[in-house]
């Protein structure tokens, strides 16, 4: 089984510890993981803002970088959803415009192999108890693309529930968007901030020490809002909780 | 070019991607939904669902019906009642003569009906899963306005004959060429804070009598 990490541009640049946690976790579970350096960004910011054609070279780059791997594992629900939902659309549109007939098959080739981290753990490796130890109270915010586009369901929860020492606290209104939405956060700053403030209020209300997600892009918004409010709740990616053990606190 | 040709021409140009000669009726259409949700006791479910939306539900045998109808009108203090032309005469047999009978006819205008207290009708079909009675302007139901303007409607549903489980089964029994009114409880609105309250323009009291053996 050849497994590649698609770390995502956000994690690469701003949250390298999340990528390092995925590597540590997978190696602990006996999975050798590669990091093909040709990878960059899935193209979601461009695509979702309307620059579909700017996305096409990134689709090709993604397929090239991960050619030959059985699984492409990524610690981001929204980047996985971008590949699985939108790559085929980008390919089909290019074909219908009579421009790049090859792009469609290139795009399709990565769809079944691209998995969000919790899908890989639960569905491929068949584990929910990854042997993690995290002695903190945590509340979980299911990010929208993981929840609705990928249908992650209760996978993240089951993984969290199996972590020793962890107290999982219910988040009211959990399934409501945090208000990030990529460029939405700046284009509609007022509404985005209002949504973020409500999300932060719910998080603080749980009394948890940390808020966990499977998407660090949403976490920049949630964490940035909490930090500005001086709330003292720290944002943490699920991979970092799962990578933690008695020996190594992530 | 008239507007009709303009609009149809635009539609055809917009659908340039649809293969010529594609016949929609020949394309398969997946109807994976259920024809009925198989309620254990459709009449019981009808009663429950009607009551849930604030209709008052009663049961009567043929022998008990005239007494019940008389009581329902009396409770409401009705001094007049509209009678569809084909309403079985026995249904009003015990309603006192002082209660004025108003015939459903051309001359019974909305303005005239506004002065009438109640109306008694049968129904074409009742739907258990939704708690709905459907009127099709049949002889025991009359014109649409007679069940609209008076503030009190007594609707008699023969059970189990007139009851179907579901919306799909109801549509199969109904004739689209007739004017149809589907009634699920008394008039209501959700327009104030999206919360339902009963009683706006239609009859504010709906009595449904389940007429059985």
């Amino acid at each position: 089984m050849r497994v590649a990490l698609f770390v995502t541009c956000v994690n690469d640049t701003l949250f390298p510890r999340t990528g390092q946690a995925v590597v540590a976790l997978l190696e602990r579970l006996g999975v050798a993981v590669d990091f093909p350096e040709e990878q960059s960004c899935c193209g979601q910011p461009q695509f979702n803002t309307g620059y579909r054609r700017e996305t096409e070279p990134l689709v090709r780059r993604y397929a090239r970088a991960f050619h030959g791997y059985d699984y492409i594992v990524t610690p981001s629900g929204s980047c996985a959803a971008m590949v699985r939902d939108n790559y085929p659309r980008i390919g089909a549109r290019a074909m219908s415009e009579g421009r790049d007939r090859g792009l469609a098959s290139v795009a399709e080739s990565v769809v079944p192999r691209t998995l969000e981290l919790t899908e890989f753990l639960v569905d491929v490796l068949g584990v929910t108890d990854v042997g993690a130890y995290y002695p903190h109270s945590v509340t979980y915010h299911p990010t929208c693309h993981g929840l609705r586009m990928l249908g992650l369901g209760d996978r993240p929860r089951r993984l969290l529930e199996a972590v020793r020492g962890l107290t999982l606290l219910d988040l009211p209104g959990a399934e409501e968007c945090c208000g990030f939405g990529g460029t939405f956060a700046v284009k509609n700053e007022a509404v985005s901030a209002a949504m973020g403030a409500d999300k932060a209020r719910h998080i603080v209300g749980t009394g948890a020490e940390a808020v966990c997600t499977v998407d660090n892009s949403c976490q920049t918004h949630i964490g940035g809002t909490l930090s500005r409010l001086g709330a003292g709740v720290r944002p943490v990616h699920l991979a970092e909780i799962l990578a933690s053990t008695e020996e190594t606190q992530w | 070019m008239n507007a009709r040709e303009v609009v149809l021409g635009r539609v055809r140009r917009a659908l340039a991607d649809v293969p010529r000669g594609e016949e929609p009726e020949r394309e398969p259409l997946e109807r994976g939904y259920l024809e009925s949700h198989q309620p254990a006791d459709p009449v019981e479910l009808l009663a429950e669902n009607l009551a849930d939306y604030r209709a008052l539900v009663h049961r009567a045998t043929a022998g008990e019906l005239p007494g019940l109808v008389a009581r329902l009108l009396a409770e409401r203090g009705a001094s007049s009642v509209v009678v569809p032309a084909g309403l079985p005469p026995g249904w009003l047999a015990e309603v006192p003569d002082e209660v004025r009978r108003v015939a459903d006819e051309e001359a019974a205008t909305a303005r005239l009906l506004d002065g009438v207290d109640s109306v008694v009708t049968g129904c074409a079909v009742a739907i258990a899963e939704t708690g709905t009675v459907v009127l099709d302007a049949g002889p025991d139901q009359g014109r649409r306005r007679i069940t609209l303007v008076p503030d009190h409607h007594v609707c008699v549903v023969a059970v189990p004959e007139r009851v179907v489980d579901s919306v799909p089964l109801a549509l199969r029994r109904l004739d689209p060429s007739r004017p149809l009114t589907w009634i699920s409880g008394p008039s209501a609105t959700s327009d104030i804070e999206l919360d339902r309250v009963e009683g706006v323009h239609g009859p504010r009291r709906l009595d449904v009598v389940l007429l059985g053996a």
Partner: protein
Amino acid sequence: MSGGTYLGMPAFPEAARAATRDERLRGNLRHATHTIRDKRARAVAELPDWAELRAAGAAIKDRTLRHLDGYLERLEEAVTAAGGQVHWAADAAQANEIVTRLVLRTGEREVVKVKSMATQELGLNAALERAGVRAYETDLAELIVQLGDDLPSHILVPAIHRNRREIRDIFAERMGDWGRPAPEGLTDEPADLAEAARLHLRQKFLDAKVGISGANFMVAETGTMVVVESEGNGRMCLTLPETLISVVGIEKVVPTWRDLEVFLQLLPRSSTAERMNPYTSMWTGTSDGDGPSTFHLVLVDNGRTDTLADEVGRQALRCIRCSACLNVCPVYERAGGHAYGSAYPGPIGAILTPQLRGVDTALDASLPYASSLCGACYEVCPVAIDIPEVLVRLRERVVEGGEATVGGTRVRIRPARGHAAERAAMRAARWALDHPGALRAGQRVAGRMRRLQPRRLPGPGAAWSRTRDVPPLPPESFRSWWRRTRGESGEAGR
């Protein structure tokens, strides 16, 4: 008296910003949308075959749209055979002109109206007023909007932005200007408010000679029209007047009588969260001695064929106007309906308005961005309109331009103004992302400069850092860490 107008409204972000500061509006919307949200979920959960009904609803609508010309011709034939008269309108001006002419021909100067999204979209009331015809809205929420000289802000409940106390005040102050005044000592109990509306409108219903409606569905096979409602005002307008004029968008046709079995299950549970709405009226042409003796059907295009011409955007025409997408939308809940600047607010409005009206104005070009793409709207849509997919498609039309159909003509539209800097930034970002070596170098520079990172960003970044701290830059990117600790091993498998 025709109420306000959407003309000249600011782009969505500015209007929404003002709404987020209106505490009362936010409270009213939060209360109403959350009330209906949970109820809808329960009503839907009662049906184990909801997913199949939803798929069938989408499939029937798609089939209809793919052959819309044939179904419209069949409908016209069936309605005509049943004694109705069919008229066609390519745009709002034509539709309003037809309706005005039909009303004036009766000699009447007053009409009663059932709530209709199509006539809101067309601005029919204002057109009638210009011709000296007064249109009385009879739906409770439309009445509240009309009496308050206000604009609708929700598809199902146009006065959702008003709470019971505000409604009481509007009734007490304004009913007298339009007819029977509100009763003395009117309270803000919903039952009392409903009673006040009943008394106010009663004489109008009894006297009305002309009724105007829309329709939820039109059956091509039989010529049957369907109106779904709750209060009985619809039945009043559809059955008591001598003349009935129904103004309906061409996408409201469904092929067969049987098809109603799908939509009559999907619509009530999605909109008012009921198993069935209190009243549904179905009529086919005219009936002797029962209901209106004259029936006119006005079929309206007004941008629908332009929408139909886009293979991705076309799915917006499946919409059955249930408003479930509004009720779950976190953006709608905070921005309110008026910010969308059209009769169609919320997620469905954000994809319908820019297709019906085009993306020429700053407001219309801003609508596709009025979403965080969270997908809650798609999840609840009873006809499975992938609203996020269409939003992204329309964003593309805004920033890249390209082929589109406008007013029935195929044109190449230019990218909207005001996106030049963004476009350049997107190109630059794409270039860097397509050159990982350059990306790594950039990350290294940023890592070294991270002590200089400001807490609040300048320029466009200010919109981020006004309410959110910027995450601290790490000393080393993942890419550099991997290379430092794993050497070239990541490339080993190549």
